[in-house]
Each structure stands twice: as structure tokens, then as C-alpha cells.
């Protein structure tokens, strides 16, 4: 090995941006960075950003950062969706290609990179990001805790997630290619034999790093929920969102090690010439599929289970009723969690396993419909004999009922192996998982965002614009995804960059593209809603002292926004709808005696460690040994320094707490 290779690895001048999309991507990042820098310098906010936000260990701030990053990635993933569908409209064989492509305007390879990135971004960096954001914001408040069990790990988890975000976008700047393998980088397609370039390596390090962050976050929340609940809050008194977050995080700590191991084995194949999943020398490609789906199927439940909890909170609050069938809902969430481990093979019934194996996994998959259906019925019975306030979170709930139910039915269809043989990997499948993830998980996230927004800002989101956004989303949703179900029945497979015009698919692809443009408009309305709400924040201010919706659970007991220590005095819980009971019995807002609080200090170590790991990821992608070693050594050193830091907490004196409380309550 010569020195140049030792330092720079495979990196050459050719890896700098020179195509239209890499130049565009890099340019966008540069403009964004310069804009941000000018903004921060002009308003003298650099120090504020660093001290108040970036180094914070406060879960509420980390939650906001998760949501902000996830939102930017949502726009990025949405842009990918637009590119995918415009290519599929233009890719009919009767249309000439342009921009140097044979069909449409993207080469097959480039098209495949885009849908790979779209899938990874939407799952790992959008839905997971929103999810961790909401859990960070809400769960500590709901269980009456001041902080998480491991505040520093929470910060580290976020920064590792952010490093993953940077790694998945890094190919714009260096390398110019992402994996063209589908979002799971299935072997042997992702092996060196078929993908010698850096694209798959970016995939590997982006997911490995953000996966590590997710795992850390999962452990943190499981410990927090199990150990840090307010006195009196037994497991069966926990709010539903806490329950579902617990289930989701339990899934995370069970399955993310599988992902880490699978990626590690693929890494060894690609970097050290082992043969775990190669075609030759005893590699077993089918093993990769089993492993990745053993992680992959529970993963989609990680995404959707917390949203089930959000719906539970919303139907109860906005019908002014207790949640109906709480024990059943808990059992349902637990049932979904457990069953999700026993269904992975339904992703490849078509691999040729025998009928016994296929039937087992098919039947297990169907059983998931039992707890899922039960939840919907219980939510409707919560609304039954209630006083439903039709605010936008309830709109999202009904939106979910009208979309997710179809998605679920499509899922059951595909759980029947012989039916799956006909629709597997067709656009029917694509329509199915978009219906469940968008209609189920994402609608829930939007509902939760609207519902909890006033808690953390002190003012509500603009309601009328919220309803416009909802209707635009719903209409756009059906126009985008109903054509895909039909296309699936027409035999159209997913991931096609071109197709024969005689198939008659093009009008439906065009309809779907129109739908996506409507969805883009819907997102535009949501951005407008946010801006208008901030501008009109005085009008929309929450004047109720922190409980704008007449809520049931503890998070509404604090002021809006809550103080950084959440609760001056930890509330005592006597029943399931703790805050509602307190209000009914008139024990809310009792004068209290304050004590000294022990709180975690801010720390930049999370940023440093994630920064070094980011360097490690990029260097490994290019086989740049020196920088890989620097990155690894730096990360380990920082972790050591942090581990021996005994002064990670400080005392907030009671007098100070009283001062803050009085100021907040007066407002």
C-alpha cells in the first residue's frame, strides 16, 4: 500500500461533483449552509445555538431537533418521489429519452439510486426521526419524569442519527453515487461482484451509524419508561402513547442488533473478501434475505405502533371521554409487537419454501390484523357517546380510518401465499406499504404534531390551514396510490425505469404523478401553516396555562412550554387519566413546596463522537485507512473522556426553581 492510498484511499478528482444532480445537491447544501451562517451571524445567534440547542441534553430540545432534521429529510425524500414518478411517466417506450438517458431523463442506474435513497430516507431519517422527536418531547412529560435515564446517551443518539443523515447525503459531495440496490441492499446485488462502487458503502455506513443511534435511543427510552415513572403510575396506569412507545422501543432493542450484524457481515464481504452472501464459495444469498427481513418487518411496526398510541390519546381527548377498552388496547399493542417477530418470511413466499412454511408465516401475518382491527374498533367506541370536537387531529384520525383500513386489507391479501405470488413486488405492494406507513404512521405523526405543538411552543397551530392541509393530503393520497393498486393488478412491477407503451400503464402513472404534485402542495400548506402560526402566535396563544385541549394525561399539567426540568414537583398519580382526575377532584395547581433539583449538564461530547464517527464513515467508504483510524480513535477517546467525567450534573437551588415557576405561572 502506498502513502496516497493510505491517506486518500480510492478518492480521486473524479469523485468531486460534476454531474447535474451532484452539482445541484452540493449547491443546495452550500446555499443552505451559507444562508444559515449569515442568519446566525446577523442575529448573533451562534453561541445561543451551541449552548441552548446543539449541546443540550434536554429531551424537549433534542426532540425538536429530531423533528427539524426529519422535516428537511422529508422534503429531500419527497423530491426523490417526484423524480421517481416523473421518470416513470416519461419512461414509456413510445417517448424519446433526453438528458442523455435512453428512456425518460434518468439512466437506469441513477433511477435505481433514487428509489433506494427514497426508501432509506423515508424510513430511517423521516419516520424514525419524527417518531424519536415526538417520543423525546412527550414521553418524559407523560410519565412525570424530569429527564431521561441517560441524558447524554440521548444527545449521542441524536447526533449519530444526524451523522447518518449526513452520510446518506454525502454522495452528492464525494463519490457521486448511492447504492442502486433497493432500500435493503439485498445481497448478492449489493456484493462487490455487482456493485463495486462506493454507493453501497455509503448505504452501509449511513445505516450502521444511524442504526447505532436508534439502538442507543431505544435502550434509553425502555429504561426511562420502566424506571422513571412518577410515584403511583403503575404499568397499567401509563398513558397509551407511553405504552406504545415502550413497545416500539422494545422492538428497537430486539431487532436493531440484527440489522447491525447483517450489515457487519455484508461489510466483511465487501471489505475483507469473506463469503457470507456471495454467489460463489459457499455464500448464501437467501440468508441475507432472512436476516434483513427479521429486522425489516418488525421495523415497520417500530414505525407504526407509536402512531397507534397517538390516535388513542387523540380520540380520548377530543371526545372528552376516557379511552375505551384500555386493557384491550395494551394487549393489542403487545400482541402486534410479539407477532411482528413471526412474520418476516412473508416478504419472500416466492423464494420457493414449501407450502407448510409459507402457510405458517401467512397465518401469523393475518393474526396481526386481529389486534390492529381491535384498536380501530376501540377507538371508534371511545368516540361513541362522546362529544367529538372536530379539530384537525381528529381529522387525521378519520383520515387514518379511511386509508389505513384499505392498506391493512391489502396486507392481508398479500399474506395469502398464492395471492402474494401474483402481487409480490408489484406496484400493488408499493401501494400497500405506502397506505399503511403514510395513512397509518405519518398521519398519526401529523396528528400528534398538531396535538402537542401548543405544549412546547405555548401557541396552537393555525386550525383552518391545518384542515386545508389535511384535505389536500387525503385527496392527493388517493390520487397517488389508488392508481398503484390498479397498476399492480395490471402486472406492473415496482422499480421500472421504462416499460412498453403497449402495457397501457402510462395514464395511471401520470395520474399518480398528479397525486404526488397534490401531496407536494399539501406539504406546502403545512409549511405555510407553520409560518402563519408563528407570525400570529399572539392570537393563537394558549391562555389556559398549559392545557389547551382539556387533556387527560400528565403532560398537560405543566406550563406551556414546560420548564427545562419538566416538573418542579413530581406529580403523584392515583389513576389512569391522572391529570383529568386531578382536575375533577380540584387537586390540580395546588401550591407546593420546592426542593433543590439535580439536573444533567449540557455537553458537546455527543457532537464530537458523532463527528468522528461521521469522518470514520466517509473514510471507510473510500477505504481511506488513515482517516478511518483517526475517526475511530477520536470517537473512542471522546467516549472515554466522557465516561470518566464525574461532574455531569448540577444542582438547581429551590429558590431558583420557585422564581422560574412563579414567572411561568404568571404568564
Amino acid at each position, binding site marked *: 500500500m502506498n502513502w496516497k492510498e493510505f491517506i486518500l484511499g480510492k478518492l480521486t478528482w473524479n469523485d468531486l461533483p460534476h454531474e447535474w444532480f451532484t452539482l445541484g445537491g452540493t449547491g443546495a447544501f452550500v446555499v443552505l449552509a451559507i444562508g444559515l451562517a449569515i442568519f446566525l451571524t446577523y442575529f448573533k445567534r451562534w453561541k445561543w445555538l451551541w449552548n441552548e440547542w446543539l449541546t443540550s441534553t434536554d429531551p424537549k430540545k433534542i426532540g425538536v431537533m429530531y423533528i427539524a432534521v426529519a422535516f428537511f429529510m422529508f422534503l429531500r425524500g419527497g423530491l426523490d418521489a417526484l423524480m421517481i414518478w416523473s421518470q416513470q411517466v416519461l419512461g414509456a417506450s413510445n417517448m424519446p429519452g433526453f438528458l442523455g438517458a435512453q428512456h425518460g431523463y434518468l439512466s437506469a442506474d441513477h433511477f435505481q439510486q433514487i428509489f433506494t435513497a427514497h426508501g432509506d430516507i423515508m424510513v430511517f431519517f423521516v419516520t424514525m426521526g419524527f417518531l424519536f422527536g415526538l417520543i423525546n418531547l412527550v414521553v418524559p412529560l407523560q410519565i412525570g419524569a424530569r429527564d431521561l435515564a441517560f441524558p447524554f446517551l440521548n444527545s449521542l443518539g441524536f447526533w449519530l442519527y444526524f451523522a447518518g443523515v449526513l452520510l446518506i447525503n454525502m454522495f452528492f459531495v464525494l463519490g457521486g453515487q448511492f447504492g442502486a440496490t433497493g432500500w435493503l441492499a439485498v*445481497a*448478492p446485488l449489493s456484493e462487490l461482484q*455487482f456493485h463495486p462502487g462506493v454507493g453501497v458503502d455509503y448505504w452501509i455506513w449511513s445505516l450502521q451509524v444511524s442504526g447505532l443511534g436508534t439502538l442507543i435511543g431505544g435502550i434509553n427510552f425502555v429504561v426511562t419508561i420502566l424506571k422513571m415513572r412518577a410515584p403511583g403510575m403503575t404499568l397499567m396506569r401509563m398513558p397509551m402513547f407511553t405504552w406504545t412507545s415502550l413497545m416500539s422501543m422494545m422492538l428497537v432493542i430486539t431487532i436493531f442488533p440484527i440489522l447491525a450484524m447483517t450489515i457487519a457481515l455484508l461489510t466483511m464481504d465487501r471489505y475483507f473478501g469473506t463469503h457470507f452472501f456471495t454467489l460463489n464459495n459457499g455464500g448464501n444469498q437467501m440468508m441475507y434475505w432472512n436476516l434483513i427481513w427479521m429486522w425489516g418487518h418488525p421495523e415497520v411496526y417500530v414505525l407504526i405502533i407509536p402512531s397507534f398510541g397517538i390516535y388513542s390519546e387523540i380520540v380520548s381527548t377530543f371526545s372528552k*371521554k376516557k379511552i375505551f377498552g*384500555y386493557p384491550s388496547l395494551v394487549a393489542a399493542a403487545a400482541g402486534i409487537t410479539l407477532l411482528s417477530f413471526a412474520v418476516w418470511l412473508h416478504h419472500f413466499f416466492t423464494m420457493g419454501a414449501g407450502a407448510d412454511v409459507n402457510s405458517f408465516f401467512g397465518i401469523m401475518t393475518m393474526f396481526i390484523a386481529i389486534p390492529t*382491527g381491535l384498536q380501530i374498533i376501540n377507538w371508534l367506541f371511545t368516540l361513541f357517546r362522546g362529544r367529538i370536537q372536530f379539530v384537525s387531529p381528529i381529522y387525521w384520525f378519520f383520515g387514518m380510518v379511511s386509508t389505513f383500513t384499505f392498506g391493512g386489507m391489502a396486507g392481508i391479501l398479500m399474506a395469502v401465499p398464492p395471492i402474494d405470488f401474483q402481487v409480490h413486488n408489484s406496484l400493488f405492494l408499493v401501494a400497500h406499504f405506502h397506505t399503511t406507513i403514510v395513512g397509518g404512521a405519518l398521519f398519526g405523526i401529523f396528528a400528534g404534531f398538531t396535538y402537542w405543538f401548543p405544549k412546547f411552543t405555548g401557541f396552537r397551530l393555525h386550525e383552518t390551514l391545518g384542515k386545508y392541509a389535511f384535505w389536500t393530503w387525503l385527496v392527493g393520497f388517493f390520487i397517488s396510490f389508488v392508481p398503484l393498486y390498479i397498476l399492480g393488478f*395490471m*402486472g406492473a412491477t415496482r*422499480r421500472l425505469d421504462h416499460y412498453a407503451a403497449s402495457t397501457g*400503464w402510462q395514464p395511471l402513472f401520470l395520474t399518480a404523478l398528479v397525486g404526488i404534485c397534490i401531496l407536494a402542495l399539501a406539504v406546502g400548506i403545512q409549511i405555510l401553516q407553520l409560518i402563519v402560526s408563528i407570525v400570529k402566535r399572539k392570537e393563537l396563544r394558549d391562555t389556559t396555562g398549559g392545557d389547551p385541549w382539556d387533556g387527560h394525561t400528565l403532560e398537560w399539567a405543566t406550563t406551556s412550554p414546560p420548564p427545562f426540568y419538566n416538573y418542579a414537583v413530581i406529580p403523584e398519580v392515583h389513576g389512569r387519566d391522572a391529570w383529568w382526575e386531578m382536575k375533577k377532584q380540584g387537586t390540580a395547581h395546588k401550591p407546593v413546596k420546592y426542593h433543590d433539583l439535580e439536573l444533567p449538564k449540557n455537553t458537546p461530547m455527543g457532537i464530537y463522537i458523532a463527528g468522528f464517527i461521521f469522518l470514520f464513515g466517509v473514510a471507510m467508504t473510500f477505504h481511506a485507512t488513515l482517516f478511518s483510524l483517526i475517526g475511530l480513535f477520536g470517537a473512542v477517546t471522546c467516549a472515554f473522556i466522557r465516561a470518566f467525567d464525574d461532574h455531569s450534573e448540577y444542582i438547581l437551588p429551590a429558590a431558583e426553581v420557585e422564581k422560574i415557576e412563579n414567572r411561568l405561572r404568571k404568564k
Partner: protein
Amino acid sequence: MKKLSGIIVFLLIVLDVYLLGKILIGGKNVQILNPQGFVALQERNLIYLAVALMLIGAIPVFIMAIFVGRKYHANNTNAAYSPDWDHHHGLQIFFWGFLITIMSALSVIVWVAAHQLDPHVALEPDKKPFVVQVFALRYKWLFVYPQQGIASVNYVEFPEKTPLTFEITASDTPMTSFWIPQLGGQIYAMSGMATQTHLIADTVGQYRGASSEINGDGYADMVFTAHSVTKSDFAAWAKRVKHSPNKLTYDSFKKLSQPSIPAQVTFYSSTPDNLFTTIVMQYMAHPSTGAQAKSETMSGMNGMSK
């Protein structure tokens, strides 16, 4: 005003359902719902049956959602309001029981259908099947007819009303899948592995065949034509192919398996012996380094074909 908009929405929904039904059931491009063979027909009927069973659960949910949303609107203060009503044993047992019953019924159907329509199972065991060996290559399909000793690329022809056995493998390609929607479901084609599926065409006709699994740049070109013809037409076609100047040897197979797009429809008048087994077993040949094993296997193959 409100009533009018309600009527308009209702009419729009009816129109949508009508159009959807028309496209799905009437459109002849909707291949899966217009099957041309026994297997595909069974699979289509299974779709209808499963949808019907699920609607038993879903329709009450939709009715309930509309009813609850209209009746318990906060403005309607005449409606009953019981804020503390949060549990009812009988109802919970009914919900669980109801869903478990529907899903159990579906489970029985799954078990029976999965065994009946298992792609490994021959359709008419007492009849001699028509065998086609399928090779997924980058980015084309090679079909070998061992009973006739001929081969074709991206085009497969077979007699109608005859049970077909497709023996499927792949060479030097990531996983792909072999699928003729109008005849029946797909099965993966994997290098170093052999899978099979049994299909039948009820009438003559040309059907689209495809792969649904991404295997590289040329994935979208992994399409072929499946042509079902009368028995006499097939015999005539096989005879014509027998006169084709191209011969499939291990050498030309090796050349053919190099990545290329788009592939021309090609016919071969002869095929080497044991091609299918040799290709399936090629990765087991030499436990040495990848590149060497490949070339040695290939030269070994050449020896065998002579």
C-alpha cells in the same frame, strides 16, 4: 348548502367506485383479474374470496366511523354523553371473538390454498408435463426445451391445455423472479439454486412475462413473451427452430450470460447436455477464489459439451 355538498360528495364516490370497477374488472390490460390459465384463475378467485371475507369486518367499521362522526359531533348536545364509560366485558369479548373468527376462517383458506397452489405441485400428475428449463441471465431469459433439444431467448412457446413444468435457475445474476401474470404467480430465479413452478394455459395467446426483482441496470428489460399455441403449431415451430443456424454450447452460454441490454429474441437449434444441472452446480465446483472457480468451471463445462 351542507346537504348539497354531501350529495355531491356521495355522487363522486359512487362515480369513483363505478370507474374503478370498470377499470379493474372490464379492462383487459388488468392481467391478474383476467387470468388465462387454471392457476391464475384460482389465484384470482382467492383474491375475491379474501376481499369478501375482509369486508365482513371492514364494512361495519366504516359504517361505525360515519355514524359516530355524525352523531357524536360536539355540537349535537342531544346525543348521549358518558365520559366515564371505558369498559364493557361483553363488547371486548365480542370484538376479539369476531376478529378471531374472521381471521381463523381466512387462516383455513390460507392453509388449504397454499398447499393446493403450491408451485412445487404438478397440476395433473397422471399427465406427462411439458418441461421448460428457465435461466435468468443479466438481462434476459433463456428457455431450454429438453424434450425438443432447442432453446430460445426472451420468448417461450408452449402448447395450450398442457400442464407445464418450469424448472428455474439463474446464472451470475442477483435474484430475479419468473412471472407470467396471466398464467399464474411468480417464483424466484436464483443463481446456484433450482426452483420450479407448474402452470397451464387454457387458450392460445401471447402473454407478458417479467421479473419483479431488481437485479441490476437492465432489470426493466427482463421481460419476455410467453406464447401459448395449439399442439400442431408448437410442433411446427419446434421444427423450424431445429433449422436455426445458432447452436447453444457452453461457450455461447457463457457469452450470453454476460450482461447486455436489450437482448434480441434468438433461437437455438441444439443445446448441450446437462446444461441445467451444470449451471445450478457451478458455484459448488471449486472452493478456491471466485474468479478462478468461474473460469475453471467454464472450461470444465466446455469439455463436457464436446
